[in-house]
């Protein structure tokens, strides 16, 4: 991976996880990590392990829920899905994110 990789910006991992679950439905931890890496196309240095504390955090907040199931290789695995509160939170955070990005962009593009 010769691409320039950056750290996961602080606070955005939660957003990414919520978005992934929203888009793809029920997923286990590995699936979520893979999906985020694919989307990032190598631009992100993600230690896959770091999503587990984030998953727990989101579950504690009630934004995602989990259930035990069986993985592709027939192992016991935990599957996560987004809750209604999570969808609402995702909408709110998406909007916030867009506003922030737009604001930062304007700031960076400002010729003066």
């Amino acid at each position, binding site marked *: 991976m010769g691409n320039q990789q950056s750290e996961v910006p602080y606070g955005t991992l939660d957003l990414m996880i919520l978005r992934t679950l929203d888009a793809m439905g029920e997923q*286990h*931890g*590995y699936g979520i*990590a893979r999906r985020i890496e694919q989307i990032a196309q190598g631009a992100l240095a993600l*230690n*896959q*392990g*770091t999503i*587990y*504390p984030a998953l*727990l*955090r989101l*579950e*504690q*907040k*009630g934004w995602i829920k989990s259930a035990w199931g069986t*993985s*592709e*290789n027939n*192992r*016991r*695995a*935990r599957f996560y899905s987004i809750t209604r509160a999570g969808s609402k939170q995702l909408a709110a955070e998406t909007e916030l994110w867009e506003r922030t990005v737009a604001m930062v962009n304007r700031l960076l593009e400002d010729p003066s």
Partner: protein
Amino acid sequence: MTAWRVLLARVRSLFVRQRMDADLDDEIQAHLELLTTEYIRKGLSPERARDAARRDFGGVDRTMEHVRDQRGFVSLDAFSRDIRYALRTLARTPGFTFAAVGTLALGIGATTAIFSVANAALLRPLPYPGWSDLRTVRTTFTDGRVTSGLVGPLEMSRMKDPKLPIVQAAMSLRFDETLLRDGQAPLTIAAAGVDEHFFPLFGLPLQLGAGFTPDQFARNDKAAPSVVLSHHFWTTVFGSDPHVVGKTIRRVDGDWRIVGVASPDMDVPRGIDLWVNLHVNPESTDHSFDGYLRVQPGTTPEQLSSSLAIVAGRLGHDYPGPEGNRAFIVQPLVETLVGDLRPILIIVLSATALLLVLSCVNVTNLLLARATRRSREIAIRAAVGATRRRIITQLLVESLVLAGAGTLAGLGVAYGGVRLLLVYGASRLPRLEAVPFDSPVLLFAIAMLVICAIGVGLAPALQLAGGGLERFLSEGGRSVTGARLTNRALRTMIVVEVAVAVTIVAGAGLLARSFVNLQREDPGFQRHGRLTFDIQLPSSHYQAPDKRRVWLDTLLTNLQGVPGVRTVGAASDFPLRDSISSRPRIELDGWSPAHEHVVALQRIVTADFFNAMGMRVLQGRRFTSFDREATAPVAIVNEAFVRKYLDGRDPLTAQVSYGFPSVNPKTRRPIVGVVNDVKYSLWDAADPAFYLVQDQAGVTQRLSIVVTTDGSDPNALIPAIRAEVDKLDPQLALTVEPVSALVASTLTRQKLGTTLMLLFAGIAVLLATIGIYGMIAYATAARHTEIATRLALGATGRNVFWLLSRQGLTVAAAGAITGVAVAYGAGRLVASWLYEVRASDPVILASALVVVLGVTMVATLLPIRRACRIDPSASLRFE
């Protein structure tokens, strides 16, 4: 909402930790396998695929640790580690640990002991259902007249008006009674006549029997009086006889039928043995009852007093004579029971709180000294990555462990202390028969623990973890470290120690002075070499006044004949007995101001009473055996009477007449003498009183007899006196006690409070001395190099000694001034509870200063002198 859910999730995780760990492990293993499979598919060998998977995943252990942190409470795991670490550290320095735990145990123990006493007396609920709605009601005159405060049936029946916020109103009448027993001495008991609302008002079910029925209170009820026994009386006198209901109690004046046994918790009026049904006329204005109210829940004191003011106003309008110008005073029942115990408890509790401050300061000081020695350890921990917060937490945990051990030991101290207090006499005070260690006490102890832990640990922790950790290392842990910071902390602590010690010592001084004043207070009679006892003549046998007089004359003559007896006197009531004296209206020379109610206490005495009491006749003459029924009636008044009513005129030219509710002109008689004031309560000034002689005024049914010995031990005469009374009437019960014991027993509370305060003052001085000695020793040790350098550069030991001493003593003086100011302020607050002592009493404040500054000087100068005797060259080379 979300935060709440997170907290719940975290708390839940504490209980299923192992299963969650297993689940997490499963989850991560599954993840790794999937990742490995992926790499194998990409063509890696299984081993390299596994390595790659692990690399992508990041540290498995670290992930698990992060998840665990997120899951539960980070601190909890770390906390138990910290506790183990603290225990190990403390175990390594047993001397330090022992000193710190012991000091804290003393402070926490004393505070908890006193708190548990205060809790038992003031905070513990009364055993009656809805106890907080119970009130006592008294009356007072709004025009300055004095009254016993007792209420009358008319007043209580007006309080049953449904428009008032009062659920129930009841009354009781306390009296002594003599019970006859087969083959045993008669027994004096405390009885209370009660109306039909009394038992329902308190709401406790009876232990045995049906109790009173409403018809027993009807005025036309002719049946023998019924009684309900107190649980205590039932067990001690009737041996808990389960068939006691229906039996009779024998009295000289007819039998009583037992209809029930009260609940063990029923104790109103306090210490009563049994309750008798009373037939009261609801229209009576006889003010001789204790009144009780049960108010509607949630009634405010203002609501109650304003509605009672309306009742008083209407009563005054309808019955202007007996009920005019009266007002009602209500008080929560618990306050009536505890009485003047509250101020003493508050004073003593404040003193123990200060004591706790002292112990905390001393332990802080120990910790600070230790912290300096540990600075290297802390620096290393900081260097290897411990955060500042972790270090502070660790140090706080250490002080928490100390405070915890101190609290445990302190609970032991408190338990022992309370038992000691009870043995010492507190058990004779209301509500202190037992002092329970209940949940409020334990909560209090826990609060003490937390306060101590933080109070003790915060200063050292902040100092150590405070900026410039590397300094510790670079300075090689030599204790010049933080010298400036420590110095300020030290100065503060010395100021606190001295100030607190001065405050407690001055407080103890105030209380002791007040107690001594009360004890020395001249009651107006001699207390030594005298015995007194009360006699209640049964009305059936001694109905005729002549019969009573003959009986009393015989008794007094017989007692006079007992070897060792010098004088015998009798009076209608004896000082300090809490007896209710009659207080009729009086007129002087047949006249009294129209709008003023002039009253005076009336006392009926035998001719020899003044002699027997050791009272002085200041003017005119005393009563003699010539003042008989047939001779002209005379009166003798006390000094207060002369001051208040005869100011400026010769008392011996005045005539007094008396009567109630209006003055009877036939009672007019000349005043023939003035005697000194006798205090009927040590706290209060004597009231105006006039004395009549028994031969002219009649012998009362209840008599106090006083016997003066010829100098021999009064106690030795008690059997002979009993024998004489027995000879005349074996059915009379009596308790004979020395007058000095009677006076002393009225001061039980004051004595207890004073003893405790003196004890605390001693402990405070000791703690302050130890603390200041330790701090100065530590501070001078920190300036070792400085001292050595000064000496090496030519300063004499004396120069350095004075330099350091001046600094030390300046700080002590600042503390002393603060202490005097605090003591003065505190004294002002409690002044009304002290007897003839002012908060600014210069002797007490000066003595407190001298005592505390004296020991402070010794504690300051000793370590400084030792520090100045070093050999500078040796000591500098060593450094």
